[in-house]
């Protein structure tokens, strides 16, 4: 049973995207990769559901 929500949940998706862009603006590649890794851990904990996390991993890995 799929629990991962892929429907858009942001009232303003452009603003959410902008926040993610601005977080990495002016960062080197290595710094940006660190940022993203920390973000993954923070958001995974916020989700707090191992089934959802595994589904998200599968969706992300499925992409070439």
């Amino acid at each position, binding site marked *: 049973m799929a629990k991962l*929500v*892929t*429907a*858009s*949940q*942001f009232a303003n*998706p*452009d603003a*959410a*995207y*902008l926040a*993610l*862009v601005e977080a*990495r*603006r*002016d*960062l*080197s*590649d290595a*710094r*940006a*990769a660190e940022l993203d890794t920390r973000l993954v851990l923070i958001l995974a904990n916020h989700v707090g559901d191992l089934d959802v996390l595994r589904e998200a991993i599968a*969706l*992300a890995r*499925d*992409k*070439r």
Partner: protein
Amino acid sequence: MRKSVYRYDYRRSIDQDAGAVVRRPVVVVGAGPVGLATAIDLALRDVPVVLVDDADRIGEGSRGICWSKRTLEILDRLGVAERLVARGVTWKLGKVFCGDELLFAFDLLPEEGHKMPAFINLQQFYLEKALVDRALELKNIDLRWSNRIAGLDRLNDGARLTIETPDGRYRLDADWLIAADGARSTIRNLLGLDFAGVTFEDKFLIADVHMAAEFPTERRFWFAPTFHSGQSALMHRQPDDIWRVDLQLGPDADPAAEQEPQRVRARLDKVLAPYGYELEWVSIYTFNCRRLDRFVHDRVIFVGDAAHQVSPFGARGANSGIQDAENLAWKLAAVLKGEGSDALIASYDLERIAAADENIGHSTRSTDFMSPHSSAERRLRDAVLALAPEAEFARRMINSGRLSVPMVYDTPLSTPDEVPFAGAAKLGAPLPDAPLTRADGSATHLVENLGGKFELIHVKSGGGANGGTPHVPDDIALTVIGEDFFDQSGMCAQRFDATPGATYLVRPDQHLCARWRHFDAAAVARARQRALQR
């Protein structure tokens, strides 16, 4: 390079032969779409206007092509929209591709019951020609071609212009000077105003091509198309079998080399070779997102590209300029007639700067998505594109240009609602359109029946204590739904949350400024005073 499509002769004006410097109430500089719309709107409000332009022609070339629904509603009030819609290509569908794969489609006007379409595509010179024709019909407009601004002195209560013509210079004073002279505004330079903002480094190639292809009439945008690797591409249909192709070239492209016809053909052949196209127009552009700090500088007021600039993705340039024109025209006319205070002019600054900031924000975000600033930003963008086929949230983040919609003004001109209203109508926004029936059974629409005055729209309440027709002063036009027009489809009631007795006060620019569940003459009078900032 720019071919002339329509030529206009210079004619000596009486102001050049007057002994003293002549003073005019309003001089508009720049006879492009925005200057023409401003002049026509003012003239229709009984304000005499001198409109000067340094050219003697309407030129061809790849400029604005997408005209939005709100712009068409404004042009309808000015008397030219029906001929433009008939001439233009109507569209409302957009499609976004990644590579050759369709990611999603969007519909810009999914509901029925609007007179004007979401967009038409039409070469800018057709729009300018229609506006010039209209201006020439109006006695209040004195249109002067080959009149170039050579100097500007600010007066305590106006501006003094020095104007260069084929037979010499003359001077002209204006109580109010409207600068509609475009992105390289002479007036802005003469006042020494800073025009700061962000310049984007990416270069884009525009090619207008003639071909008899039966692609669908929709806006098509590609990220990383196979025919133009690694960059974006945009295609739009125009009338006369002309297609606009817009290709991202990146920051390092050499503008001179890229404009060589062989080079352009090599790019276009990859996608258009089967259609036997001809090149009509090629140009390379970069763009800026910027605006003046203030649009109102005492008696000098900036409109359109002279005041603000955005990227072309989103059709927010010329459309927002025409919306500047409509916002300013009724206010300036009211001030000249002594009906509105100077604070009304200040509200032009407030409302249109907010609109410019909204447009610049959208334009900047679109550009950031198309042209990531670093490899880290590019990875994020590419991740969104990669997830898009499976995940709706990612599709919603894809930004190929958010197309122009009218600004909802948060403005002191609005009277706050005392009771809640549902529906699409919003305070500070242009009225939503709705289909109506006249007493004789013929079909019409709401917005086309709103003239240039304050309008009171009242929903007949069907007898009882509040059932009478409202009495309104002469300076407010009254429309009664259920008497003048009938809402057979129910769309008007739905879009306005219109219960019997509901009453709406509409600004002369068709924006809603107050509404009530029942008519109250004193409340209407107060709301009108407020909308005039008295």
